């Protein structure tokens, strides 16, 4: 993983803000419906999986209950497979709970065009008929291309469409958590 202190990477959310966002999102999820019997958290690989697990851990701390956790690999559901450069490696989808009738909270790191979420919804529906699917994201950066919205948002981060946003998480090898905006050379030197 490249070092995050590259000159053109601007830190927009640090570890503390991320931790507080996860906490707040967790409380909001619990507030929305106090009945936890059909709740399940599903993370979208790879960063969404990490954040989803953290939400599950937080729920366990608050309510002393282990909520079922699943992961989705959306590679087989993407609409842009022919355009990708690299050979896709599948990491697998596992939903170890009854999808039909469940209240699923889908978790991802960044909500952008909405296509990843659409693919994830297709995957979930192939497994059964959930009662409800809600979406929790760490960052919403706008520029939706499909009518998709998040129920729980850590931070809204308006950005230019061409800019890249990078999320670094400890569980994925980073030294510290952080969300970075990758600036062009022009912007760096401003």
């Amino acid at each position: 993983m490249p070092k995050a202190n590259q000159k053109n990477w601007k830190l927009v959310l640090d570890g503390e803000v991320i931790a507080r966002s996860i906490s707040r999102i967790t409380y909001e999820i619990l507030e929305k419906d106090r009945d936890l019997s059909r709740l399940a958290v599903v993370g979208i690989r790879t960063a969404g999986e990490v954040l989803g697990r953290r939400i599950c851990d937080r729920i366990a701390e608050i309510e002393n209950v282990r909520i079922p956790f699943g992961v989705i690999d959306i590679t087989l559901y993407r609409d842009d497979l022919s355009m990708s450069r690299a050979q896709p490696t599948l990491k697998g989808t596992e939903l170890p709970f009854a999808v039909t009738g469940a209240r699923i909270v889908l978790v991802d790191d960044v909500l952008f065009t909405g296509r990843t979420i659409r693919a994830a919804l297709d995957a979930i529906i192939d497994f059964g008929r959930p009662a409800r699917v809600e979406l929790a994201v760490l960052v919403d950066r706008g520029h939706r291309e499909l009518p998709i919205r998040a129920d729980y948002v850590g931070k809204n981060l308006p950005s230019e469409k061409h800019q890249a946003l990078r999320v670094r998480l400890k569980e994925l090898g980073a030294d510290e958590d952080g969300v970075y905006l990758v600036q062009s050379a022009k912007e760096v030197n401003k």
Partner: protein
Amino acid sequence: MKHLLGIEGLSRDEFYLLLDNSREMVEISRRDIKKVPALRGKTVINMFFEASTRTRSSFEIAGKRLSADVVNVSATGSSVTKGETLLDTARTLSAMAPDVLVVRHSASGAPAFLARYLPDTAVVNAGDGLHEHPTQALLDCLTLSEHFSARSQGIEGLRLAIVGDVLHSRVARSNIWAHLLLGNEVRLVGPPTFLPPELKEAFGADSSQCRGRLEVYYDLKSGIAGADVVMCLRLQLERQSQHFVPSLEEYSREYGVSEKLLARYAPNCVVLHPGPVNRGIEVSSEVLDGPRSLVSKQVSNGVAVRMAVLFLLATGKDTGETTIA
């Protein structure tokens, strides 16, 4: 990778890419809805010039599970029996421009021939003559990797004995390439008529680049001694007219794999067979139906492997990477 014409020429990374993706595909076959939309809108043509129910339906199911449009063309009853040449067939297929063409043919090199004439199609070799049968080797390795999942090295560092008619077996060839790539010790066991002296050189086994080892044994007991895996090849009874073995009884006596033999010389081994099996000739029913046999797993893994292959080729072809094997 643009085509899958054989295991020869695959890099270790490419091989593991196929194997790892195959593993993930297994999960889809366990769902209630055994379908993903990955190849929606893509056309897969299965062109089988040689009769085969098992492999063809395996590819058909694989394509359908990926939501591809699958078309089966068999040689009998098609224009091929009316004397259409392979070249004409290639031109007709080219006009249909499928995304993927799966070919099984009795002539070695036929898939490579078709690939030359179909620039916009990814070609999968489902078995060509005596040359290669790459998806079989992959599913054999997937089966082994499931069995050896607890091993730290996975399916590397194994001793494998392939017993029987290696000379006429495309399955053997593909498996030899695969296991040499993995760095395994491969022992070819059988009568000298099936194991010509040029075998080691044919697979580059003596070169410094070869990661594995290849040895030839004419004696079954020493050949399978200490083997982790024993793969039995079908003795093709049609070969008798060319005098490869004096008689079936003699072959079966000298090279037939039985439980007694395995218990004594390779007590921990598992057994593979590409099928169809001549029960009692190359392997006994006791072994085939017993706990060592991974044959039924081989069959079910076929679909997963073929899904991975179709997926990688159909989605990778637009990146314009070069032909492999």
